């Protein structure tokens, strides 16, 4: 059992409240999983700038002087410290050089997510504590996903928390357990993917990243997942402009969606959705088994 939530805004006037809305939804799901919590927020990208969200178990040591350390490769680099996490912004052209230098000089720092717009925060602990230590409520954005974990397939650690990000501006949250993840991980490693954990959900994220790298869009990659992933899953997936949902054919893992003119929302339970504006008049439905749902800001009219 885990709790997952997602929110894809259609109404721009709600964007400043994305973090607050998503935090409330996630905190409501606390009793579905107390082990760890995480949230991915897609903010407005700024032209020519890239973002890197990193984490350290010893932030006082690892993040000390980090901005000065990175300046030589990109004078425009900025670092915002948030508890155990830091968000590094750099010129897109220098982003990989910044990342290389960081890996070399601060080898214990872990990358949570990278891209033009996504910021990912996750830690061991309850959703209310995780969202408050990172100040998630104050964050705006276009869409976001969150997860509260009851661990089954790998250890309760920061890296084992969701969302898993395996590609630029991509992330995935999972309720369920996969049974063919070891085999699939070996195949993906052969294709050049790297893994941080022994977690099954990370394999699902990497699978989608690999499929999208071959030219598929999110919807096509999720359709492929129905054939190639074995086990129980309800996935909610974010990309730079898109938001997708898919459930396995057995569909044991709960899922409720709601749509109004202002948003598309996902919750493991209806409880997660009850505070959203206009929920009384929303179209509320359960996503069908083995059916791919996805929405894209860029493809929307």
């Amino acid at each position: 059992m885990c709790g997952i939530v997602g929110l894809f805004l259609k109404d721009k006037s709600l964007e400043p409240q994305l973090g607050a809305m998503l935090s409330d939804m996630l905190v409501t799901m606390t009793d579905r999983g107390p082990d760890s919590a995480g949230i991915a927020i897609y903010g407005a990208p700024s032209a020519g700038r890239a973002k890197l969200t990193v984490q350290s178990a010893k932030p006082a040591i690892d993040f000390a002087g980090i901005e000065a350390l990175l300046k030589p490769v990109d004078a425009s680099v900025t670092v915002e410290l948030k508890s155990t996490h830091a968000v590094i912004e750099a010129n897109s052209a220098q982003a990989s050089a910044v990342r290389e230098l960081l890996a070399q000089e601060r080898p214990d720092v872990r990358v949570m997510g990278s891209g033009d717009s996504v910021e990912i925060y996750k830690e061991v602990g309850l959703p209310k504590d995780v969202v408050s230590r990172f100040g998630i409520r104050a964050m705006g954005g276009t869409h976001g996903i969150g997860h509260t974990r009851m661990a089954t397939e790998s250890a309760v650690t920061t890296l084992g928390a969701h969302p898993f990000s395996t590609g630029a501006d991509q992330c995935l949250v999972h309720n369920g357990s996969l049974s063919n993840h070891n085999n699939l991980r070996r195949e993906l490693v052969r294709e050049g993917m790297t893994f941080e954990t022994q977690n099954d959900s990370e394999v699902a994220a990497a699978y989608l990243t690999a499929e999208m790298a071959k030219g598929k869009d999110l919807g096509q990659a999720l359709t492929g997942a129905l054939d190639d992933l074995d086990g129980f899953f309800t996935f909610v997936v974010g990309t730079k402009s898109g938001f997708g949902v898919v459930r396995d054919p057995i569909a044991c893992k709960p899922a409720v969606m709601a749509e109004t003119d202002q948003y598309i929302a996902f919750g493991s339970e209806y409880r997660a959705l009850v505070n959203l504006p206009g929920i009384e008049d929303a179209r509320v439905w359960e996503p069908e088994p083995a059916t791919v749902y996805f929405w894209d800001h860029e493809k929307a009219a």
Partner: protein
Amino acid sequence: MNVSLKRESLEAMRTFDLATMPLRDLNSALHTIAPGTNDTSFEVVNPRGSHSVAVGIDQPVTVEVHGSVGYYCAGMNDGGTVTVHGSAGPGVAENMMSGTVVIEGDASQYAGATGRGGLLVVKGNAASRCGISMKGIDIVVHGNIGHMSAFMGQSGHLVVLGDAGEALGDSLYEAKLFVRGAVKSLGADCIQKEMKPKHLKLLAGLLEKAGVTDVKPEEFKRYGSARTLYNFNIDNADAY
């Protein structure tokens, strides 16, 4: 004094606002009904997807729930009448013994699971595994039902005015299934059976009990067990 109190309670409907009161207050009140009391009408507002609303009723009370509920609403109901003016989460009316549960909206997975008696009416759609392992309950769904419904159903009746999903009635025992629309696929050992006059009569009674007036029994098809899985067959040994 007692007389006037009694008169008042005849009319009184007790309201539980779950936005301000704990669920325990509601369920405790439902579990401490004195036999023979007239104080049997309850109203629940702001359920907001709460779990276990009105579970374990064992007296002929009436509960009107205004809004949508979460897991296991009206579970183990024995004699109560529970109406949800909204949708219900997983396991609504699971293991019902007797009484009536009506969902005005949709029901999530395993509605009426393992029910031993009583009537469950879903006015919208029911998701997967509706009536799984049913053991005497009657379920009437106005809309469609999802996959693996009536799996291992032992007795009772499942009536579906709309369509049924994949693997209807898989490994069915003696539950009787009536579907008006399309069946995506039948599960192992579930077959279509002839609708005889006695079945039409039975179905007419179920529809009437569920307040369905605009649909005729003749519009349904009947499904039941082929009874080929009841006993071990040595020819199937390779399959295990």
